[in-house]
């Protein structure tokens, strides 16, 4: 489904005669190479997506979805209810609460990822003893699978046996129930995600820094630019291509970041640290499984991300990026 819509827009574009994109026959083998992916995507993303959108317009739950138990086929009895699910979600205070927290979570995490990543990349880009040792050690958190990292941190935060409280007690302070209080739990999950995500940013930005020609810095130095001026006038613009890609990717990934919150706090205390994605997941797979409600949450999340990405791309285009 998705692929075909793509082709239509491309066809329109070709019809306008703008690109050197050639018609189907000239590059049939290109399509032959893409076919496997197109098929996989169509079946596994296109179809579930269409079905998810449909489910979101019904009142399907675990109770009425219809299934086969042994030889007995229980028919589905859910009905089409139009936009009821969406209305219910968008008018609930819960949604806006979760949205606010998700936005805070995303902005805080991506800002910290980018800021710390850039700082470390700049440091590592200098001539320095032990540079490769530092680099490898700093990349290490990336090598730890996210779910393992989540479990490690959960242990560190443990209020009775965790090392963080252990250190606090050693310093004569009383321990903190890190995951029991909404505010500290939020800080805790952001910390975990920052710890996991910084290496990626650092590595990507380091690659970007290394592609900036040294002559630029030399020329600026000859012209008497201060280090700060050089950073603003050469480093930041030189990183624009990389930055725009990693920030967009980082935003999407963080927005949809599932394992950290699911495993570190299980969304708790209450559902305070639940972001939109984990909340929708819980709707679908706990208690009476509310498939339609969860699908509606999913559609809303997706719509927001698509709008974000399109807006982002527009902005970049307007600034002259060929992206």
């Amino acid at each position, binding site marked *: 489904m998705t*692929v075909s819509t*793509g*082709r239509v827009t*491309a066809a329109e574009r*070709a019809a306008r005669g703008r690109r050197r*994109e050639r*018609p189907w026959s000239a590059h049939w*083998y*290109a*399509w032959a*190479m893409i076919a496997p992916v197109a098929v*996989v*995507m169509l079946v*596994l*993303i296109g*179809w*579930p997506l269409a079905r998810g959108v449909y489910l979101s317009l019904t009142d399907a739950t675990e109770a009425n979805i219809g299934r086969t138990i042994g030889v007995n086929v229980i028919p589905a009895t859910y009905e089409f209810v139009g936009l009821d699910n969406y209305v219910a979600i968008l008018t609930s205070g819960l949604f806006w609460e979760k949205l606010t927290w998700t936005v805070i979570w995303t902005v805080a995490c991506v800002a910290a990822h980018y800021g710390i990543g850039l700082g*470390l990349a*700049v*440091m*590592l880009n*200098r001539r320095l003893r032990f540079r490769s040792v530092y680099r490898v050690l*700093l990349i290490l958190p*990336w*090598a730890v*699978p996210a*779910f*393992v*990292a989540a479990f*490690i941190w*959960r*242990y560190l935060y*443990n209020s009775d*046996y965790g*090392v963080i*409280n252990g250190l606090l007690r050693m310093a004569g302070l009383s321990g903190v129930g890190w995951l029991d209080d909404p505010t500290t739990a939020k800080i805790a999950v952001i910390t975990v995600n920052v710890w996991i995500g910084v290496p990626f940013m650092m*590595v*990507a930005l380091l*690659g*970007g820094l290394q592609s900036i020609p040294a002559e630029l810095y030399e020329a600026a130095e000859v012209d008497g630019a*201060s*280090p*700060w001026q050089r950073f603003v006038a050469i480093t930041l613009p030189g990183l624009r291509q*990389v930055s725009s890609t990693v920030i967009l*990717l980082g935003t999407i*990934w963080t927005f*949809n970041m*599932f*394992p950290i919150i699911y*495993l570190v706090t299980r969304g708790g205390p209450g559902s305070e640290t639940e972001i*939109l994605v984990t909340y*929708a*997941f819980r*709707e*679908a797979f706990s208690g009476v499984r509310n498939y339609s409600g*969860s*699908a509606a949450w999913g559609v809303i*999340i997706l719509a927001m991300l*698509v709008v974000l*990405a399109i807006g982002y791309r527009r902005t970049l285009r307007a600034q002259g990026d060929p992206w």
Partner: protein
Amino acid sequence: MKRVSYRRRGERGPLASIGLHAGLLVAVAISLFPVVWLVLTSLKPRDGWLSTELRLFDDASLDNYARVLTGTQFPQWLLNSVLTAGLTMVAGVFLAATTGYAVSRFRFLGHRSVMWLLLITQMFPVAILIVPLYNLMAGLGLLNQIPGLVIAYLTIAVPFCAWMMKSYFDTVPVEIDQAGLVDGLTPFGVFWRVALPLARPGIAVTAFYCFMTAWGEVGYATVFMSQEDRQPLGAGLQHFIGQHWSDWGLMTASAVLIAIPAGVVFLLVQRHLITGLTAGATKS
């Protein structure tokens, strides 16, 4: 850190050097501490995790490891994970390489949309796909089956990998392809015999990324694999940390066993990973 004043080009004062190293050391300490603590905890005796005392190796024991390997389903989960991740890797590399190559080389109808669509699939939240995908898998009898999980992982891994492979193929000069065509290879022959071997680092990175995606995934694994003996590690390990009962000794030991192979492979390919990620992005 950036604002150190230059003495001569490329040199800085001793204070700035100290600052630079101090900053990096702090960062290294933060990045290493949780991992080091994990290893230390796993080496404590059976109930050692119940204390926060910062004792190091005075009574190190491999008790936890022995319990994990003999007394739990860990070996079975590990096998499931290895199978799942391995299959995801093979299929993912194949799909990503063909797509990446086609998009990098041919300005065919819709090639832009293909890349853009791949990016958009990155945005799909688990929540919207998981229920229909669950139903689809149930319909095909693929629940609790490793191939079902592999297919689900491909939807996550392939889009990003195709982007990476494209940027690798972009770095292989087109002239080489053309030479291959002149020598009588078909377009597929050029791909298989010329371009693919030249993009070997890219393939290593893609393989690694696919493997890690499957190795570390939790959501799909938890939902699709309800039978305990079919679960991969990400789902299985949750049994160690229950609502009312936790055994962090088991947990830390298995976490170390999982993280070590991943870490070793990671350190081997990380150089390529860096080039792969940035090659596409920095090219204008």
